[in-house]
């Protein structure tokens, strides 16, 4: 079949291969599944974002005058559940990973294409359950579902939301399994482990975390269900359980889940920085191994979420010590990206701006993580806005910036169209400014003692809260602007060549958008990744014109 179609498919690509709705809903093409994930995630992002808009408006004034306290609790819970389980965790793996990973390793599809399609349906089922829980009365436990509140006292749709998160977990397991097998078994001839793009290494490390961690949170969520529905004592002290046991089991997954959200972004940033500096990544093996190190060490640190619970002080000391360790591989990466740019030929297109945003914001997020992993300072900062600011710097400043950078970088490959560079640069700056205006004041708020998850606060905090809300508006405007010009470019954008950035990597050696079978001729790899000293086989056709569009 591959030989039969290979000659006749000039102008045919995965988007125009078939046109019916059913051809999308029943597709096993990893590229189409990636695009389906993109559309679904945008919807979830809008839902989660709408909740944030409402509670940021409430926080404009010290009095709880816009929302009742219960509504406020439900809104931040909704924001957390939707953004974490239904946007950040699947964002890069399910969209960019699904689309690019098989092309990057030079194969036709993932190892189990039907499982890949099933993962999208499972994800949507989980998402719909969570959505029903939200619109049918809401959930007020916080995204962490802490017991015994969630199992005994919360008077909201906990079980439905827990089921949604439980089911969505299986979708990430399916995707991760697909990636691990694909990377191990389906690499193109000549593509050795150390010739893989660092994005693939990051996807591999992420998939390992997903495979080892997600079953634990699934079982933990089942335990909530069992205790809440049948009164079986696991976590409730009144029934002989231990609430801190829930926190152990929950964070055993949910801390590594932070790395599920950030490792893929690190992979994206490696690709972008190499391309827009025209240089091989400095210390390739260190960056590759540091992804694995983060995946492993990330599993040893979860107790730092529980320093002020009744967790033993001695366990706290061990977890604090181990947490400092995870900063080492992260710092290696940041150093190596910086060194990659040194004496590079840097150009500032939108993807590179997002990568810069990632570097700065993620570093701030990471360094404030060290404050929080220090036992004594954590006693002061625990459950304040300092923590809120810290994890938004990591997850939005890191995770989302990486996702947006990757989306712009590979947009020509995915859609066959260039986005308007000027608007993209403007939006990237707006998003960067809006993000900092939103979350930097929250470090101050938290340091001065503003606890998280309250809809009322002392009047002294109002100025900082107004700054934060203003920043959120700017940030929201930036996102909408981006949605606008990306949507516009689908129809009116300049047609992209196979390799508009003159980048290296197998995904740039096939046409944009790629044909259904990815490569008309099965590729053979002869260079290491990021061989920017060699001419690319596809480079001459289009890269100077892409510069002029900026």
């Amino acid at each position: 079949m591959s030989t039969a179609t290979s000659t006749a498919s000039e102008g045919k690509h995965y988007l125009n291969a078939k046109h019916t709705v059913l051809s999308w809903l029943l597709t096993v093409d990893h590229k189409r599944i990636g695009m389906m994930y993109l559309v679904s995630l945008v919807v979830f992002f809008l839902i989660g974002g709408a909740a944030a808009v409402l509670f940021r408006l409430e926080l404009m004034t010290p009095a709880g005058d816009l929302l009742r306290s219960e509504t406020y609790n439900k809104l931040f819970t909704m924001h957390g559940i939707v953004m974490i389980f239904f946007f950040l965790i699947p964002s890069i793996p399910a969209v960019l990973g699904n689309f690019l990973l098989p092309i990057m390793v030079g194969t036709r599809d993932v190892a189990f294409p039907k499982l890949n399609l099933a993962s999208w349906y499972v994800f949507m089922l989980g998402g719909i359950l969570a959505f029903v829980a939200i619109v049918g009365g809401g959930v007020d436990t916080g995204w962490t579902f802490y017991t015994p509140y969630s199992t005994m006292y919360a008077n909201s749709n906990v079980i439905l939301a827990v089921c949604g998160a439980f089911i969505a977990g299986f979708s990430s397991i399916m995707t991760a399994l697909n990636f691990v097998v694909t990377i191990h078994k389906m690499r193109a001839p000549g593509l050795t482990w150390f010739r893989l793009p660092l994005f693939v290494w990051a996807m591999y490390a992420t998939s390992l975390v997903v495979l080892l961690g997600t079953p634990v949170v699934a079982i933990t969520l089942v335990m909530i269900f069992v205790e809440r529905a049948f009164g079986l004592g696991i976590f409730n002290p009144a029934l002989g359980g231990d609430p801190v046991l829930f926190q152990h089991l929950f964070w055993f997954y949910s801390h590594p889940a932070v790395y599920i959200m950030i490792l893929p972004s690190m992979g994206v940033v490696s690709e972008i920085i190499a391309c827009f500096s025209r240089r091989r990544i400095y210390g390739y093996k260190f960056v590759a191994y540091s992804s694995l190190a983060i995946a492993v060490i990330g599993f040893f640190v979860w107790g730092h979420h529980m320093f002020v619970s009744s967790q033993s002080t001695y366990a706290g000391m061990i977890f604090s010590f181990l947490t400092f360790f995870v900063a080492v591989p992260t710092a290696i990466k940041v150093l190596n990206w910086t060194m990659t740019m040194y004496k590079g030929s840097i150009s500032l297109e939108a993807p590179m701006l997002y990568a810069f945003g990632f570097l700065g914001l993620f570093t701030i997020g990471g360094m404030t993580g060290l404050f929080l992993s220090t036992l004594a300072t954590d006693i002061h900062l625990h459950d304040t806005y300092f923590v809120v600011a810290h994890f938004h710097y990591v997850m939005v400043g890191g995770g989302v910036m990486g996702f947006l950078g990757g989306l712009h970088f590979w947009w020509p490959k995915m859609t066959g169209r260039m986005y308007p560079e000027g608007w993209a640069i403007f939006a990237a700056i707006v998003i960067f400014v809006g993000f900092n205006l939103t979350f930097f004041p929250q470090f101050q708020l938290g340091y001065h003692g503003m606890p998280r998850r309250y809809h009322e606060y002392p009047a002294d905090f109002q100025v900082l809260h107004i700054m934060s809300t203003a920043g959120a508006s700017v940030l929201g405007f930036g996102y909408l602007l981006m949605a606008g010009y990306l949507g516009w470019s689908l129809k009116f954008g300049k047609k992209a060549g196979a390799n508009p950035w003159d980048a290296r990597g197998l995904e740039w050696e096939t046409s944009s958008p790629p044909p259904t079978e990815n490569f008309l001729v099965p590729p053979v790899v002869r260079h290491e990744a990021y061989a920017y000293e060699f001419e690319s086989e596809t480079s001459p056709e289009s890269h100077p014109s892409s510069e002029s569009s900026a």
Partner: protein
Amino acid sequence: MEHPVVPVSTYLKIFAALMVLTALTVAVAFIDWGFFNDVVAMTIAVIKALLVVSVFMHLKYSARLLWLIAGSSVVWFMVMVGLTLTDYRSRDWLLHEGMRPEPWHSVPAEVMQDAAPSGHNGAEAGSTGH
């Protein structure tokens, strides 16, 4: 994947072994081994799990890479249990008596009043106040 065909008799033998081991688990439960109660029960359970994983789930006939993957999941389980136990085993250790959390009723009234609105933080304030 090319697996060697496993004869049905092998499956039946493993099934029989699992049944015997189940009966053994029940039998030893009637004897009080003291400290070794858990050790004995867990040993039998681990043997049963190994039989299931290696024969029924074909790990014995699979590539070494799959052994590594199955093994790492066991290691990860041990990490989870082990580090959780660092908490449970050391909760009662104290460097000095001042570290012992005060029961609620013995916290001085003025401390309670200061900490009143914020629930459990009262215990923290009480214990560090000494």
